[in-house]
C-alpha cells in the first residue's frame, strides 16, 4: 500500500527543498531529511517508500535545483501526479528516473489516503476503483523504464530519440 500526499498548485522548489538545505550547504547524505522541511515538516518524518504525491498545476516551479526532485526520490516517492510540471523539474525527474504523470486527480483522492500504485499499467487503485494514469510518449516511457535518461545513455551509448551509434 502507498499513501497519497496531497499538495496544491504551483508548489515551488523553495518549498520542496529551501536553498539553504542544499547538499552544497550541508551534505548529500542529509538530503532525505529536507523535503518540505518548512512547508510540511511531517512529510520527511512520515513518508514511506512507494508513496505518491498528488498535486495541482505547475508542480516544481522555480529553481533548476535537481536536489528538489532528488530529495523526493531519496525518500522513496514512487510517482508524482499533477496536471502539469515546471519544465526543469520535469527534466530533472526524467534524468533521475522519478516517475511523473500529467493528469489532475485531486478530486479523486484525499490526503493520506491508502492506495495501490501500479507503475506498469500505469494506474492507481483508489478505494476499490481503478484510476488509469496517462501513458507518456514512447521515448519517455522507455527512458523512464530504464531508470532515467542518464541510465538510458549508459545502456545504449546514445540519447533517446537519437539513431543508434
Amino acid at each position, binding site marked *: 500500500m502507498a499513501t497519497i500526499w496531497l499538495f496544491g498548485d*504551483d508548489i*515551488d522548489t*523553495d*518549498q520542496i527543498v*529551501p*536553498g*539553504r538545505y*542544499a*547538499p*552544497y*550547504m*550541508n*551534505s*548529500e547524505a542529509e538530503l532525505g531529511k529536507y523535503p518540505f522541511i*518548512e*512547508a510540511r515538516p511531517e512529510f520527511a518524518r512520515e513518508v514511506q517508500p512507494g508513496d505518491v504525491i498528488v498535486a495541482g*498545476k*505547475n508542480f516544481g*516551479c*522555480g*529553481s*533548476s*535545483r*535537481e*536536489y528538489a*526532485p532528488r530529495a523526493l526520490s531519496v525518500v522513496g516517492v514512487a510517482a508524482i501526479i499533477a496536471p*502539469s510540471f*515546471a*519544465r*526543469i523539474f520535469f*527534466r*530533472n525527474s526524467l*534524468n*533521475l528516473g522519478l516517475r511523473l504523470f500529467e493528469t489532475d486527480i485531486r478530486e479523486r483522492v484525499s490526503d493520506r489516503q491508502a492506495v495501490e500504485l501500479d507503475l506498469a499499467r500505469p494506474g492507481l487503485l483508489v478505494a476499490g476503483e481503478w484510476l488509469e494514469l496517462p501513458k507518456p510518449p514512447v*521515448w519517455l516511457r522507455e527512458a523512464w523504464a530504464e531508470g*532515467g*535518461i*542518464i541510465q538510458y*545513455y*549508459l545502456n545504449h551509448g546514445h*540519447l*533517446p*530519440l*537519437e539513431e543508434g551509434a
Partner: protein
Amino acid sequence: MPDQALTLSEQILSHAVGHPVHAGDLVIVEVDRCMSHDSLTPEVIDSLRNELKAERVYDPDRIAVFIDHVAPAASVATADAQVLVRQWAREQGIRQFYDVGYGVCHVVMIEEGLVAPGQIAMGTDSHANAYGAVGAFGTGVGSRDMALTMATGRNWLRVPETIRVQVQGRFRPGVGPKDVSLYLCGLLGLDGASYQTVEFHGLDWLDLDGRETLCSMTTELGAKAGIIPPTGPAAADWGVPDWLALQEGAVYSRTIVLDLDALTPQVSMPYATDNVAAIAQVGDVPVDMVFIGTCTNGRLSDLQAAARILAGRHVAPNVRLLVIPASHRILSEATADGTLATLLAAGATLGTPGCGPCIGRHMGVIGAGETCLSTGNRNFRGRMGSPNGRVYLASAETAAATALAGFISDPSRL
C-alpha cells in the same frame, strides 16, 4: 526564402540541427556553451565521475564555471565544495573559470562575450534565460542534464512555441524593464509561458542591461527561453549571424501588446512572483531591508538609477540598504563614476559581487517577521531566509525610493 516563417527559437534550433524544425518537434542539438556554478557543480562532477564515468568533458572550451552562489564561502561545507570545483575545473582544462568576486554567472557570461547571438547555451541555473538578451537561446537545466551535456556535447530539447510581447511607447520616469517583467508575471502567472519562449519585439532602442532583466525574468513565467531580437544600437557590434532575424509570418501562440506609456511601477508581493500589483495598490508597507543586486537588477544602470534617487539624501532610520553589484566590472565602473560613493554616502553597505542573499544562504538573509524589498527575481516563502520573513520584488528605482522612505514607495512620484 524559408518555406515557412520561423520564430527566433525555431531559427536557432533549425540552424543547430541543419534543417527546419518547428514548435513541438523534438531535437538533439550540439550545445555551444555550458554554464555551471558552485551551487550545482559538485553534483555535476559526481554524476560525471560516478554515473557517466566521463574522465574528460567533451570540450572544456565550451564550458564556463562560476563561484557566485555562495561567494566567498560562508562555511566549511561550502569552502570544501569550492575546493572540489576548482580542482575539477583545473583537471579538465576549463579556462573560463570565474572564481569568488567576478560576479553573478549570467551577468559575467554576457560581459565576457561567452554567449553570442544564435548560440544555444545551457546553464545549471533557471535564469540562464538571460542569454536571450544577446539573441542566444539560453535555458536552465539541472545537474544531471548538465553532466550529460558536458560529457556528450549535446542534449535534447522540444522546440518551444513562442509568445510574442509587442512593446509600444517609452518608459515614463521611474518605470523600467523590471516593471514590464513584473507586469507580465501578474498577467500571465507562474506558468503563463511554461515550456515556451517569450520574444520581445519593439525594443530596438533598449540597452543591454534592460534586455538582460527582461530575458532573465521570463524564467518566472515558466519559460524555456526569453529572446530579444539582436537588433538596434545595443547590438551593433555583436556579430549577429545573417540567418537570425525576425521573419514576417512566424507563428506565435499568443501576442501581448504592451504600452509602456501607460505602465506604472509594479511590485510583486509575498509569496509568489505572480502576486503583482501596481505600486499604488500596495500600500505603505514598512521594510527592514532593501537589497539592490542579483542577475536581474544588479547592473550598472540599476546602481546608477538608485544613486540618482539617493544622491544627497540618507536611507530611513532602521532600514538597512544592501547593494551587491552583479559583477566585479560593474563594481569597478560604479567606483570610477562616483555611483558607489553616492550610494555609500546615502547609507548603503556593500557585498561581494555574486548572488548575495537572493537564494537565502548568506550575506544578508532575513529573519522571522522581517520584510525585505529586493530587486531580485523570487519571493517564495523562505526564499531569502526565514519562512516567516516577507520579500517584495521591484525595480532598483523603487528599491531606492523605498530605502529613503522606509516603506514601499513609488519612484515616479519623487
